[in-house]
């Protein structure tokens, strides 16, 4: 039960008288009995034996050598037991922090975004397969297609101009016709934009391509930009893309493939039919005997010739789509890189200050994380220490309780 701590004025007076009596000072007459009590108790105070007094004096002169206290092995063992226990506790807490910290992010292991500029290109039937450097799965195991789908993809990877051995996608034995469209975005220092544009033209020429259109100019506050609409021979596209990618930092690369084999064969067949019809009409015209027959056959022959011409145009267009890949190239001149922030510029004091700031930010982040881990540990340790201290004190105090 908790006892009251406040003292009455009379009790206060008695305590003060007690302190005065202990100090050898006079007290009020009505408290003389308290003074006698003090004198009697102190007169009865135990005194050291002369032998112990001499021994203690000797020890004092020697600087109290450590000969009295011998910590028991059991106590030492108990203290050492706390070390692994504390380690386990710390590890458990750290694991908890890690688990809680990673629990909220569900995108761990969802595939990397590594760049593979010259990776395989897939096309499936008449459908287009889009490949982007930012969207490509990192490994086959992550979202890999089923076996039959994989086989279809493999078949689609047959080089252009080579008959498809599977033959299931297109019943025709004619070579595959694939239209390739590439979108490429480069980032270069702002002051190198013009020279990079010149290099683009040179590269396109080198690979036998053409620049369908181009534009260069100031874009916005972030810097100037240039855009090119290119046509590159399909069989030399990979090499051209590799060369173009070296002109700057590849910010984005995207490829679209459309299998136009079906359309090509269809137009080709219709052209053959139109030609055969025209040939037949020409033969029939040669055998015509009446004027009416001749007029009728000539009219049909004109129509057939017109159809042949139109189909030849369509076929040529399809062939060009298959033979020439479309490359949309965008180049952004980065003003920051022009100031020397890029890999090509010189390293200025401003850059050093920026790097130092970033370094400090990293250190601050690391320190914050460390604090987030250590602060709860320290708090826990302090609580444990306080608890142990209170327990030890209670145990000691229990020695004063009646047995």
């Amino acid at each position: 039960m908790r006892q009251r701590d406040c003292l009455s004025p009379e009790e206060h007076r008695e305590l003060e008288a007690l302190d005065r009596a202990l100090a050898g000072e006079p007290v009020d007459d009505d408290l003389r009995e308290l003074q006698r009590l003090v004198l009697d108790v102190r007169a009865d105070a135990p005194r050291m034996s002369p032998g112990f007094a001499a021994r203690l004096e000797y020890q004092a002169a020697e600087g109290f050598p450590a000969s009295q206290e011998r910590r028991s092995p059991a106590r030492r063992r108990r203290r050492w037991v706390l070390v692994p226990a504390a380690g386990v506790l710390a590890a458990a807490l750290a694991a908890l922090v890690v688990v809680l910290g990673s629990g909220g992010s569900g995108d761990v292991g969802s595939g990397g975004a590594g760049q593979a500029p010259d990776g395989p290109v897939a096309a499936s039937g008449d459908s287009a397969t889009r490949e982007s450097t930012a969207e490509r799965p990192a490994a086959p195991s992550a979202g890999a297609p089923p076996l039959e789908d994989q086989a279809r993809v493999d078949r689609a990877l047959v080089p252009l101009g080579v008959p498809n051995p599977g033959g299931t996608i297109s019943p025709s034995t004619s070579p595959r016709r694939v239209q390739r469209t590439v979108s490429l975005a480069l980032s270069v220092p702002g002051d190198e934009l013009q020279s990079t544009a010149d290099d683009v033209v040179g590269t396109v020429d080198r690979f036998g391509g053409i620049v369908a259109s181009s534009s260069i100019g100031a874009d916005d506050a972030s810097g100037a930009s240039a855009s090119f609409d290119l046509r590159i021979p399909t069989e030399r596209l990979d090499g051209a893309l590799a060369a173009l990618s070296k002109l700057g930092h590849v910010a984005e690369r995207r490829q679209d493939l459309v299998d136009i084999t079906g359309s090509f064969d269809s137009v080709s067949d219709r052209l053959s039919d139109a030609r055969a019809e025209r040939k037949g009409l020409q033969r029939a015209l040669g055998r015509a005997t009446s004027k009416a027959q001749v007029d009728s056959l000539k009219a049909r022959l004109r129509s057939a010739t017109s159809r042949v011409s139109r189909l030849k145009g369509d076929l040529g267009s399809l062939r060009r789509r298959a033979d020439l890949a479309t490359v949309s190239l965008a180049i952004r001149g980065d003003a920051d890189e022009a100031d020397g922030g890029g890999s090509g510029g010189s390293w200025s004091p401003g850059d050093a200050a920026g790097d130092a700031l970033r370094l400090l930010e990293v250190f601050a982040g690391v320190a914050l994380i460390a604090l987030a881990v250590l602060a709860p540990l320290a708090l826990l340790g302090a609580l444990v220490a306080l608890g142990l201290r209170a327990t030890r004190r209670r145990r000691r105090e229990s020695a004063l309780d009646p047995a």
Partner: protein
Amino acid sequence: MSGVLTIDEPLNTSTESFDALYRDSARDLYAYVRTLLGDDASAEDVTALAFERAYRRRESFDERRGSSRGWLFAIARNAALDELRRRNRTAPLVGELPDELAPAPEEEADVALRRSTVRAALAALGARDRELIALKFHGGLTNVELAAVLGCSETNAGTRVHRAVTKLRKACHAPA
């Protein structure tokens, strides 16, 4: 008892100041420990042990947390209580009264009787009250120092001392 020692110089900067503490406190400390433990041998061991510990830890003494005398008595108290726990018993106050404490033949009869009464009354107190009397009367600690030794507030220390003294006074006036 030689009164409350005031040591201006921190213990960790001067061996002389610890020596002064030793000289001023040794007898009082022994009296307190002897009263608590009840036998000479244990009291001597614990007293020596307390000084040894205090000397070893003198650099950790922080005068902002209390006086050096209170700090020394706290160390002695811990050692004494550990000894009591080891023996697993509470010691009687005057289990074996030294001969030198017995009233001298030439003392007046009433003084001898009074001291005998006080001795018996002290022995009749509980261990906690007896310890408080010993700390206050033998150790000469102020209430602030008592609070530091007992781990309580100054007010609580005063209340406990007053209660123990009241019990002692009542026991002295109780019919034999």
